[in-house]
Every structure is written in structure tokens, then in C-alpha cells.
């Protein structure tokens, strides 16, 4: 079943490549809907009560190892976190296809073929249980995206595409190096100390167990290597500069996928590899990563405020928003990390939708400049409604999805390491991290309301010489509304009833944090006798302490 998720987009892409242009759209539409239906089907088959387990396993040995258990394999399996991200990918796929019908009229086949081809590696990243499968999928997302930007982007597209490709590719090579070190360590070093079978295993679960045996120094280096790739992808300050450029130049659907899913590959990598693999280093360097995230929140947020290009503004807002996501993740407690995973989903929905809105405006006015257009609420009330709605979701208005994840990330950071009261958890951060990061909430209001205050509200301004919208109506047509409506409905649903999603995330996140907790427990045990500062008691111990 999971294999189908990868195969369907590829088959569809191939079909489109050899179909007539008229047929291409239909195939793209149908296959993306099928793809979405399949993700929903997977979600039904998935046993949500056991979200920490990797379900629906699939393994195809590629014959590169000694036997079935070791060596490279095409290996899939999903836990609760991956399942949610796959559903997000599945949802965005048909929306991107249908959202592109009017904007892409040239080289239709190439466009849809690559757009669909992009789905396969993206979903494979979330599915992968094998390191090589993961890495190949991770890198393969670059190619279709590169093509989409460089062929269908705006004026400066070649430069943007090249920068995007090289920047992220260089980063992920380092990640690969770090991960291969773990493979090597598992195969050659662990047996020396009597642990492990000494196999060249690429199974992520096996490697995770092995990686935790590494010394603190080794873990720190592996952490650094992995951060290179994932931080670029996320992107974190100061390696974010490819993103605004890529977003500005990419076609609408490209931006949507980029913001919606591709950036999540970075945070997913942090969640799947960094935290469980190298808990010792993570516990040590989390404050540093958190500080970088906070700098990103404030720095990128302020930059948003002085943008003149709507798309660039939304792009920088992604940098700022993902700062919250990473901050929550590195709070290393349940609230923060669950909030962080929720953030990945919510940011995909609301920012993806904002890119759609901007794209719909661009298709009508052929400009993204805040100086040339304004007050569109007068002419396009439906568009204005959606734009304001998604902006509010992005601002983190309670009742919409953004709030739940943002407040959880901040609360997670706040309680992480708090030693007073009972609501604190052991962890590396603290109230100051949350307090400074929370200024991002104010900054977000400043720049996002600045944006809607210009393009949606105010007196009507249209670019000079603008007379008609070409084939499109003045306001959104039914197809465009149908693209935005599901996203809006989900934003509202996840804002008002996040309970099922939170429940589903409890177990897998606890599983991912297990290494950190274990490390903390041993630290406490080791230092307890020596009277070195002991953090708040680990989980469970507190129950005995309190009457």
C-alpha cells in the first residue's frame, strides 16, 4: 500500500510525459486525486492507537548486503507523525494541480509531469525506514523542484533554481556524511565493544539504537553534520537565503509545495534523525539551536515588514514561523515537540494557502508589488475573505490552527527546564527563551497586518494599464474557491478540534524523545551521589516525591 503511494505519482508522471497536452491535465488531476484518496485510505488503515509503531511495513532488499536483514533495501513504514505529514502531502497534491490550470498554459506536459514526479520522493522521505531510501528520496525532491523553478518561474528563475539546488544539495551531502558515519560505527565500532551484530545495516531503527552508543564527541560531530542539511532545508537563520529567492521565482504550485512540504523535510529530518540519534549532543546543544531559531523568528519577521514583494514577504514569514517550529522541537518535551509537529502541518496549510492567494492575485495583475496593487477587497471580496482568513491563521489567531501549535511550541520552551512549580519538565530551555520568542507573535501581527492592510484593504490601487484579467473573472472562479476551501476548512477544524491530532502525536513523539529522557535519567543517576546539580526529577520520579 505504501509502495503505491510512491508508484502512482511516478506512473502518472510518465503517462503525462507521453500524453497529449489536453490529456495531461486530466491525467494529472485524476492521478493526484487518486494519490490523495490513497493517503486517506492509508490513514484509515493506520492504527492510530499505536501511533509510535511503524506500521504497514514494506521491505524490498536490493541485494547489496549479506542477507535479508542487513544491507540496502527499499524499506517503508509509517508512524503517526509520518502519517500526518503524508496526509498533508496528499492533500496539497491535487490542490496544486487544480490550482495551476490557468497559470500554466505553456509546456503543460513537462509541468504536470514534474509536479507529479515531485510527489513521489516527498512522500518517500516520510515513508522511508531505510537510510539510503531516505537519502535518495530526500535528494530526488530537488530535481523536479529545480525544473519547476527554472522552467516555469519568473524573471530571475535560473539563478534562483541553481541556488536552491546547490545550496540544499551541499547541505544534504554533509547530512549524508554524518549518517554514513553512523552506519560505519554500527558495522565496525559497536562489535568491538561487544554490542551489535556488526552488519552493514541501513535500517533507521537499528541505526538509531546504534547511534545512541556513540560518545558525546562523536554525537556532537554527527549532530553538526546532520544540522548542515536539515537546517538549510528548514531553513534556519543564517542559511535561509535561498528560500526567499526560490519562493519569489517559483510558480505558484511550486511555492505551495515548497512551503507546504519541502521545508517540512528539514524539520522532519530534525525530528526523525537528529533528536533520536544523538540525544546527548542534542541535550547539550539544544540551547544553541534554540537561540538560532529565536534569532530567525525576530530577524526574518522584521525583514518581512520592509518587503515590497508580497511573495517575498510570505517567504520570509516562513523562515520566521519555522523558527517557532524548531524552538518547540528542541524544547525536548512533549508539549513543545507535539506542538512542533503540529506546526509542520499547520504551517503547510496556512502558508501554502497564502501562496495560492498570492498566486491568484498575480495571475490577475501580473505583479506582486505591494506598491502597485492595493484595496482589492473592493473588487475581489471572495479572494479577500480567504486571504484575510489565512493571514489570521498565520498570525496564530486562537480558533484557527496556527494558534494551537504556536502556543504549544512556546509553552514547551517555557516549561522546558523550569524547576519551580509542577508544570515544568526537564529540558534545556526555559522561560526566557519563550519570552523572547513570543515577541515573534507581535512581529507576526505587524508584518502580516501590514500586508493585508495594503493588498486587501485601503483604497483600490491597480497597476497602470491594467484593464482586464484575461480569461479569469474579476473575483475567484469556482475552481479557485474549491482549491482554497478545503484548506480553510482544515485550518478551522484543526483550530477548534485539534484533540484527535494531538492524541495521535502523543505516543510517537514520546518515542522520539525516549533517547533524550534515557540520557537524562542516566545523568541524574550518575550525578545524584556526587551532589552535582540535579535537574528536576525525571518522569515518574515526581509522583513519588509528591504526596
Amino acid at each position: 500500500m505504501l509502495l503505491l503511494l510512491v508508484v502512482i505519482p511516478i506512473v502518472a508522471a510518465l503517462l503525462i510525459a507521453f500524453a497529449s497536452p489536453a490529456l495531461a491535465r486530466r491525467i494529472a488531476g485524476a492521478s493526484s486525486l487518486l494519490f490523495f484518496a490513497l493517503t486517506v485510505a492509508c490513514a484509515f488503515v493506520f492504527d492510530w492507537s499505536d501511533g509510535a509503531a511503524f506500521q504497514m511495513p514494506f521491505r524490498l532488499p536490493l541485494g547489496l548486503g549479506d542477507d535479508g536483514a542487513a544491507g540496502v533495501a527499499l524499506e517503508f513504514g509509517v508512524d503517526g507523525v509520518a502519517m500526518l505529514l503524508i496526509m498533508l502531502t496528499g492533500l496539497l497534491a491535487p490542490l496544486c494541480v487544480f490550482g495551476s490550470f490557468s497559470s500554466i498554459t505553456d509546456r503543460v506536459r513537462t509541468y504536470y509531469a514534474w509536479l507529479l514526479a515531485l510527489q513521489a520522493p516527498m512522500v518517500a522521505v516520510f515513508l522511508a525506514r531505510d537510510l539510503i531510501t531516505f537519502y535518495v528520496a530526500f535528494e530526488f525532491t530537488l530535481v523536479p523542484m529545480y525544473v519547476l523553478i527554472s522552467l516555469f518561474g519568473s524573471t530571475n528563475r535560473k539563478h534562483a533554481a541553481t541556488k536552491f539546488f546547490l545550496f540544499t544539495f551541499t547541505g544534504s551531502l554533509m547530512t549524508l556524511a554524518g549518517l554514513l558515519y553512523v552506519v560505519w560505527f554500527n558495522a565496525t565500532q559497536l562489535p568491538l565493544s561487544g554490542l551489535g551484530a556488526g552488519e552493514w545495516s541501513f535500517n533507521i531503527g537499528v541505526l538509531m539504537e546504534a547511534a545512541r552508543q556513540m560518545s558525546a564527541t562523536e554525537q556532537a560531530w554527527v549532530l553538526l553534520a546532520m544540522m548542515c542539511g536539515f537546517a538549510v532545508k528548514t531553513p534556519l537563520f543564517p542559511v535561509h537565503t535561498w528560500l526567499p529567492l526560490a519562493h519569489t521565482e517559483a510558480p505558484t504550485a511550486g511555492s505551495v509545495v515548497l512551503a507546504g512540504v519541502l521545508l517540512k523535510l528539514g524539520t522532519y529530518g530534525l525530528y526523525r534523525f537528529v533528536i533520536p540519534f544523538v540525544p546527548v549532543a542534542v541535550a547539550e546543544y539544544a540551547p544553541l539551536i534554540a537561540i538560532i531559531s529565536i534569532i530567525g523568528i525576530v530577524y526574518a519577521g522584521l525583514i518581512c515588514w520592509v518587503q515590497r514583494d508580497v511573495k517575498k514577504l510570505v517567504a520570509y514569514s516562513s523562515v520566521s514561523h519555522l523558527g517557532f517550529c524548531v524552538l518547540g522541537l528542541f524544547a525536548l518535551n512533549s508539549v513543545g515537540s507535539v506542538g512542533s509537529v503540529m506546526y509542520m502541518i499547520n504551517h503547510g496549510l496556512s502558508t501554502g494557502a497564502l501562496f495560492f492567494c498570492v498566486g491568484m492575485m498575480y495571475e490577475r495583475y501580473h505583479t506582486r508589488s505591494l506598491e502597485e496593487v492595493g484595496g482589492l477587497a473592493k473588487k475581489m471580496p471572495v479572494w479577500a475573505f480567504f486571504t484575510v482568513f489565512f493571514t489570521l491563521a498565520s498570525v496564530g489567531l486562537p480558533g484557527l490552527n496556527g494558534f494551537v501549535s504556536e502556543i504549544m511550541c512556546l509553552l514547551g520552551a517555557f516549561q522546558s527546564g523550569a524547576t519551580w512549580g509542577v508544570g515544568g519538565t526537564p529540558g534545556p530551555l526555559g522561560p526566557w527563551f519563550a519570552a523572547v520568542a513570543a515577541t515573534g507573535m507581535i512581529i507576526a501581527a505587524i508584518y502580516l497586518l501590514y500586508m493585508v492592510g495594503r493588498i486587501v484593504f485601503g483604497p483600490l490601487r491597480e497597476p497602470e494599464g491594467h484593464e482586464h484579467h484575461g480569461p479569469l473573472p474579476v473575483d475567484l472562479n469556482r475552481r479557485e474557491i474549491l482549491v482554497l476551501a478545503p484548506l480553510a476548512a482544515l485550518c478551522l477544524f484543526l483550530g477548534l478540534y485539534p484533540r484527535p491530532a494531538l492524541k495521535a502525536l502523543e505516543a510517537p513523539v514520546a518515542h522520539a524523545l525516549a533517547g533524550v529522557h534515557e540520557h537524562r535519567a542516566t545523568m541524574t543517576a550518575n550525578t545524584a551521589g556526587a551532589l552535582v546539580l540535579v535537574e528536576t526529577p525525571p518522569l515518574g520520579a515526581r509522583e513519588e516525591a509528591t504526596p
Partner: protein
Amino acid sequence: MLEAISPMLTLAAADAGAQEGLRASLLVLVFPLLASIACGLCAVFGVKSKLPAWITVGALAASFVVTLMIWGQAGHNTFIAHGYEWITLAWGDGPGQQLVANLSLYIDSLTLLWMLFVTGLATLIALYASEYMSHDVGPGYCRFFAYFSLFVFSMACLVMGDNLLLLYLGWEGVGLCSYLLIGYFYTKPSAVAAAKKAFIVNRIGDLGLALGIFSVFVTFGTVEFAPLFEMLREGVDGAGAPLAGSWQATWIPVFFMIGAFGKSAQFPLYVWLPDAMEGPTPVSALIHAATMVTAGVYLIARMMPLYLLDGTHFALALVAWGGGITALLAATIGMAQFDIKRIMAYSTVSQLGFMFAGLGVLTSAGAAFHVFTHAFFKATLFLCCGAVMHGFAGQLDLRKLSGVGFMKGWGIVGIAMFIGCLNLAGFPFTAGYFSKDMILAQTFATPGYAMLGWVLLLTAGITAYYTFRVFFRVFVGPKLYEPGDEHHGDDNHSHDHDHAHEDFHPHPPGWAINSVLALLAVLSIAAAATYFINKPDHGWVGSMVHNSTADVTSPHEGTFLGMDPHKAMYYVSAIVGFIGIAIAFMLHYVGRRTSEKANADKLLPAVGPVATWAQGKWYIDELYDAVIRQPLLVLSHVFHIVDKLLVDGLVNLFGRLPTMTARALRPSQNGVLQSYAAGMAAGLVFVLLVVWALL
């Protein structure tokens, strides 16, 4: 519909032991929410009638009736009505290892007090708005009432929520509705700017509230009111450790205070409220005078046990002085303004200052009573101003209107305005007089606040002056007017007036506006009567407060010049009020022949530039702009340049080498699918070969 509800309530109450059975109280939230959705649908289906207004009025009235029923059933008990699980996350079984925030209601008499006047006033003001907004029938009308109902829903969440996160939802929700309604005339740049300002300044306050909520969670391990108040009653944190003297006891209340000061427009976060007058007047009356801006008072009253934890009452002193300073500052600005709606806005800021001072000097009953009476008389005042604005094509300048109360068809407006002004000025035996007295007297009765008492007494005098300045100039005197040029900010509706002055005829209010004004005027007077119900408990409002978490013991040590402040204040504040009114009478009524000039102008040279400064609002907006906004903007530009040149420049430098490599490989980048795929496949094979070699 109502027949369907009442048996549900009766049934629920009959279910003895389980007080939580009063689930029907969730209907208070449901009706406005449904109305909001219905109004939205009206917009979608292009309804071009007053249907949205009737939906809203009906739903809000239903909410009001349900609130009354709950009040009847619940009395002074506290109960929780369970809705559904909203945010729930558990990471252990111990205390403080679950984050639980349900969509459930915590209902005690404080909640009911607030909900009674919120739903009641909202119903009346919606009725008023049905006529006031009639120029915009169509999509704008639907939009207005959708936001209006959504506001009441959010306010209900804020007041009734059983946990701090739901309160926060309501808190930001009312802020959103305020944003949307201030910016209702969205083509007007000033309205858009005012809306943005309101939201952002509120967000600064919200940051304080958020930090307060985080601190509460970490300290107590819960954000739900029921267990929280249980612990606060004992004065312990979640682990059972006493909190007195801890930093939490001192600072958590300060965090909440920051939130309250943002929402309730107190110094230094008050600057958004006067600008908020860009919204339609019914909005100013309901949201920016009667209900939303009192949310800060509610928050502090609700969290009063938290404020009392700290024996030194540090946060309460801040609240008291913050309120006192704001009261005086806003009153001095109000004295010098010419726009009557803005004067009312500054008076709201000032009166809110009184309420906070009341909370700070430990008379939550007085503060709540002032909230209650203020809601009625300030709504009356705003709606009268709105009627004038509506009738005179947007004219709000008190120098361009005179004798409105005596014009044909304006009688009810004139009388309602007079009653409202008497209340605001604290004229003896009006509701405003009793409620203000409770606060003033307590400032002298609580040791250490006599100075604050004098500040507030001075403010009370100024209030009487500026209130009657408006009245004597606009509503009495020679009948003169000059119409405004505004058509409610919308440029394409069918207004039946002509712009030219000579053809202009004032447009007296119709039945909806008049009946609402008459009713509100009566209610403003009737509010005074509640003071005599259950007198020893400081009236009906006092008894409601005493049965809630806002209950405090007011000290009685202090004196007013050696007298019992509670007795002395009846006379003193009356005299102060009289003096203010008399000065206004002398300066703005006696000898005034035109609408433009009055005796007050003769005094202007004597006060020098002070009047200009006060008129310029003490230039606090300009100060904020220079000290906060501009530097931040410069910083943003610097960051942008740094990002472009330095951060990206380094990357580009680093990328020079690979770029050159890429240039060498350019022939292969020909945009043909197959070659890319082939390239990537080759890469994959390469990787696999490396792996193979390693094995």
C-alpha cells in the same frame, strides 16, 4: 425555540448533585456563533435586505434569555458546563503532566454579571445598528452583523471559559472582531491604520497574558479555573508549596496586568482606543465602551486570588496607579478635543482607569459596579453621538453643531444624552454617581492611597467639565449646524441627502434608534436602583461579586480629612461634579451665540501652549512613533540589507566554486526530462556503488 430550552434547563437543574448538568448554558455561545455563520451565508447568497440584522438581534436576545435562565437556576453557585475536549495532551500521570484546556464553561456570579450586560446590551445595540447601518444594506450589512455576532461569541468565550486558554481564545477573538469592525470602512486608509494599530497594541498586551498563562501552568500544573482556584484558596502551588513571598506571587499578576492594560486601553497601551473610533458607532458603543474594553477589569477581578497572594500587594499597587494615571491623562486630553466621539473615547479610557484604580485599592465590587453602570450610560452616550453623526452626514465636530436637542425629531436623543452626561459627570443619585463614589471612597479608605484619591477626585471634576462641554455646545443653545462630508466612509451607497449645505436637512433618527436610546436611558437610571438592592453588600452587583472569585475584603482604616470616606464622598464628589458642570456652563453655554465661539476661547491665551498640547494628545502617539516604531523600522531595513549583502553575500561567495562547476556542466542542463532523470539515476548508481565498495 425558547420553549425547547427551558425544559432542558429545568431538567438539568433537577438533576441535583450534578451541577455540571447545566450544559444548556453552552447555548449562550452557540446562538451568536450560528448567527455569525448565518450572516456570512447571507453575504454568500447576496441577501439585500435587513435579514442579517434580525437574525443577529434574535440570536443575541436568545442568548440573553438563556443567560437570565441560568442566573435564575444557578443563583450564586459555581458550576462547570462541559463542552468538548479542545487542547489535551498528557505526558505522564503526575500533577502538572497534562495540559488540559476544554471548551467548557466556568459559571459563577461574576461570569453571569458580565454575560447579563454583554448579551443584553449587544441585543439592544444590534437593534440600533439595524437602522444605523441601513445605508450599507447588502454585503457590507451582512459582514457587519457577522462580525457583530462573532464578537458576542468571543466575548462569551472570554468571560465564560473554564480555563485560561479558552479565555485567551476569547481574548484574541474579541480583538479580531474589534480589528475587523474598526476597519469596517476598509477603503478608508485611516480606518485600516486604526484597525491595525488596535490589533498590534493589543498583541503587546496579549504577550503579557500569554506569559502569565505559561507561568500559571508551570506553577500550578493546570490552566483550568476550578483546580487553580482550589490551590489559590490554600495559597499553594501545584506541589503544595506555599506561594506567599515567591517571585510567582509577585510577577504572575503583573503579567496578567499587562494583558489587561492592553485590552482595556490603560497607560501606556491606551493609544489604540481613541483611534478605534474609526469604526461604525454601534461598534464603538458596544465593543469600545461597554463590553470588550472591560475584559481587562474582568481578568483582574477573575484572577483576584492571584493578586492577593502577595502580601505586599505589589501588582495591585501597579494596577491602582496605572489606572489613576490613565484616568487623569485621558481626562486632560478629553478636555481639549473637538470630535465628540473621540471625547467619549477618552472618557472611556479615563473611566476604565477608575475601574482599575478600584481593583487596585481592593474594591472589586466598586470596580464591577462601575463597569456595570458605565456600560449603560456610555453606550447611551455613544449611541447619541452616533445618532448625531448619522443625522448630520458624519459631522462630529462640536464647533459645528449647536442646539441639536431642541431640533424637531431630536428630543429623545437630547434627553438620552442629558441622562448619559449626568451619569458620566457623577451627578448625585445617578448610577454613575454611586459607582464612582464606591471607588473614590475606597481610595481614601485603603491606607496609602490618599494621593491616588485626590488624583481621581480631580479627574472626576475634569470629567464633569468635559462631559458637559459637549452637552452645552452640541445639544443646547442656538440651533445651528453644518453637515459633515462623510457618507459613512462608503462611496457608492444610495444616500438620499445632498451634500450642499443649503439643501441639507438633518435626518432625525427613526424608531429603532429612538426606542433603543429611550430604553438605554431608562436603564442607565435604573442601574442606580441596583445599588439599593442588598445594600450592606454594596448592592446587587456587590453581592454578585462577593459570591465569586473576585471577592476581596476592603480595608476601612483610612479617612478622608478625618471623616469616614464612604460618608464624606457622597458630598465631596457631588460638589466636585457640580463645580465641573458649572464651569462648563459658564464657558460653553453662557453668552454663546454661534456654534464656533464660546467663552472658553477667551481663556485660551491664559493657559498658553498647554491647550494645544492637550489637543495634540500630549504627543504620546508621536513619541511612540519616534521611540519605538521608527527605530524598529530602521532595524528592519538594516536587517534586510544585512540579509541581502552579508548573509547572502557570504553564501554566494561560498557558492562561487560549485557555480563554476555547474557552468562547466551547463550543456547537460537542457531542460529535457530524460537527461535530468538519467543524471539523477547515474547519481543514485554512484551512491550505491560507493556503498557496495564499502561492503
